[in-house]
C-alpha cells in the first residue's frame, strides 16, 4: 500500500479567514514592529508555525513559487502547501516569491530575489519563524509607517542580521521584506525600515 500523508486541514472559512490574515499582514507591513495576530484554529504540520501556515494559505497560490528552509521541509509540510495553496516548491531561494524559514535556517538575506530598480516588487517576501515577538526590547525601528520609533524584540535571530538588514535597506527600492512570525503573532520589516540595536530610550 502506498504511504499516505496526513494532510492537515486549511482554513475553515477560506474567504473570511484569508481576509483577516491579509489585513493582519497588511497592518504589520504598514506599521513595522507593531505585532498583529492571525485568527486561531489552524493546526499546521510541524514545524510550520500557525502564522506562516496562515500567511501561505492567504497569499500563496500557483503564481507564487515558495521556498522552504531545509529544516521545514518534510512530507507533511510539502503536502500541506501543495494541497491547499497549489504553489510550486522551488529549490533555489532566489526564485521564490515567498520563502519560509526558521531563525536558525534563515540563509543570508542576499541569497533571495532582490528585485530590480525597474521592478522592485519582484523581490522575495521572507517569512521567518521566531520563538517570540515583543513590542519592546533591543531593536529600534524607524522609517515609513512609524510615527517616531517602534521597539521590537526578536529573540533567536543571528547576531549578524542587523548588519545584513542595513545592507538590504540600502538597496532600496530593491531588497527583501521580512515577515516575522511567532505562533499566531506577526510583525513585519519592509525594506524601508531602519533597524538599530540599542538599549531602551
Amino acid at each position, binding site marked *: 500500500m502506498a504511504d499516505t500523508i496526513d494532510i492537515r486541514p486549511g482554513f475553515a472559512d477560506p474567504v473570511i479567514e*484569508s481576509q483577516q490574515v491579509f489585513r493582519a499582514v497588511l497592518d504589520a507591513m504598514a506599521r513595522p514592529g507593531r505585532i498583529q495576530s492571525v485568527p486561531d484554529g489552524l493546526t499546521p504540520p510541524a514545524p510550520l508555525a500557525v502564522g506562516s501556515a496562515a500567511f501561505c494559505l492567504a497569499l500563496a497560490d500557483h503564481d507564487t513559487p515558495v521556498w522552504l528552509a531545509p529544516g521545514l521541509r518534510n512530507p507533511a509540510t510539502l503536502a500541506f502547501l501543495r494541497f491547499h495553496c497549489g504553489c510550486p516548491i522551488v529549490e533555489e531561494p532566489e526564485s521564490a516569491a515567498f520563502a519560509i524559514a526558521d531563525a536558525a535556517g534563515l540563509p543570508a538575506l542576499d541569497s533571495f530575489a532582490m528585485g530590480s530598480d525597474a521592478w522592485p516588487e519582484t523581490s522575495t517576501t521572507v517569512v521567518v519563524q521566531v520563538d517570540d515577538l515583543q513590542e519592546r526590547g533591543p531593536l529600534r525601528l524607524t522609517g515609513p509607517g512609524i510615527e517616531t520609533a517602534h521597539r521590537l524584540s526578536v529573540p533567536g535571530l543571528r547576531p549578524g542580521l542587523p548588519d545584513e538588514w542595513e545592507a538590504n535597506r540600502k538597496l532600496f527600492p530593491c531588497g527583501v521584506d521580512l515577515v516575522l512570525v511567532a505562533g499566531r503573532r506577526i510583525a513585519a520589516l519592509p525594506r*524601508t525600515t531602519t533597524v538599530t540595536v540599542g538599549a531602551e530610550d
Partner: protein
Amino acid sequence: MPTVIPHPTASTATAAAPQRLEGYNFAYLDEQTKRMIRRALLKAVAVPGYQVPFGSREMPLPYGWGTGGIQVTAAVIGPDDTLKVIDQGADDTTNAVNIRRFFAKTAGVATTDRTVDASIIQTRHRIPETPLTEDQILVYQVPIPEPLRQLEPREAETRKMHALEEYGVMHVSLYEDIAKFGRITKSYNYPVRVNGRYVMAPSPIPKFDNPKMDRMPALQLFGAGREKRLYAVPPYTEVKSLDFEDHPFEVETWEQDCALCGAGDSYLDEVIVDDKGTRMFVCSDSDYCRERREAGHQGDGGPA
C-alpha cells in the same frame, strides 16, 4: 429669495446585513484575484510611491468610475468593516452611492457617511477634512497613476526614469509654468515626492489636500483600474509637494467662508445659483459641513 442648495442633512448609513447578494463571492472578486491584489498591495506598502502592476479585472462599472479603487477595497474589506465612499467630497453623488451600495450588497458590510465612523474610506478626488486616524484606510480612485505621463508618453521610458530617480523633466515642467505665468499653475493632481524617493501622482485631488497626505496616520492605498497599477503611502510617511525654494508650494485660499456652515478652513465648491451668474461657496466635504451645522455653526446663507 435665497436658493436652497440640496445638501445632505440626514445620515444615509446602513447597518451590516448578514444576507449578501446570492451568486457572488464575498466582495465580488474571486479569491485568486484578491490574493493577486493583496500581494501587490503588500509590495506597494514596502516600496512607498512605486506603482506595482496588477492584473486589473473587468468590473461591473466602466473605467473612470473607480474600477481601481473598488478592486483595492474589495481585496481589503472584511465583514467587520464600515465603509464610506465619497466623490469630490460628497457621499450622495451617483458614483459614491453606487459603490457604497455595491459593497453593501456583495459584502454585507455596514456603510456610513460619517468620516469618524468609517474604517475604510474610498475616495474620488478628495481627502476628508476631518483628520484620519491610525484605524482607517483611505483608498483612492486613480485615473492616471503615472505622474510623468503628460511629459513622457512611453511606459518603458517612465519606468526607467523612476528606476534611475530621474525627475528633472518634472521640475522643468513646473519651472516652465513659473517662466510663463509667474507661478506653478497645477491645481490638482499636483505631483508629490514620497519618502524622498518616488515622484507620485496623488490622484486628481485638489492641491489643497496635498498637505493632508504628509505623515497621515492612516494607510493610503491607490488603485488605477484601467492603467492596472496599485501604489501606497504607509502611515507617517513624508509626502512632499514638489516646489522650488523661491516658489514654495501653496494651497488655494478663498475670500469667502462656506455659506452653509461658515467654515473658513475647508475646500469650497463654487455653486452657480441662478442664471445671472450669482455664486455661492459651500464645503465640498458634505459630511464635514453637516457636522459643523449640527454643532451649531452657521454660514451667511450665500447671496440673497
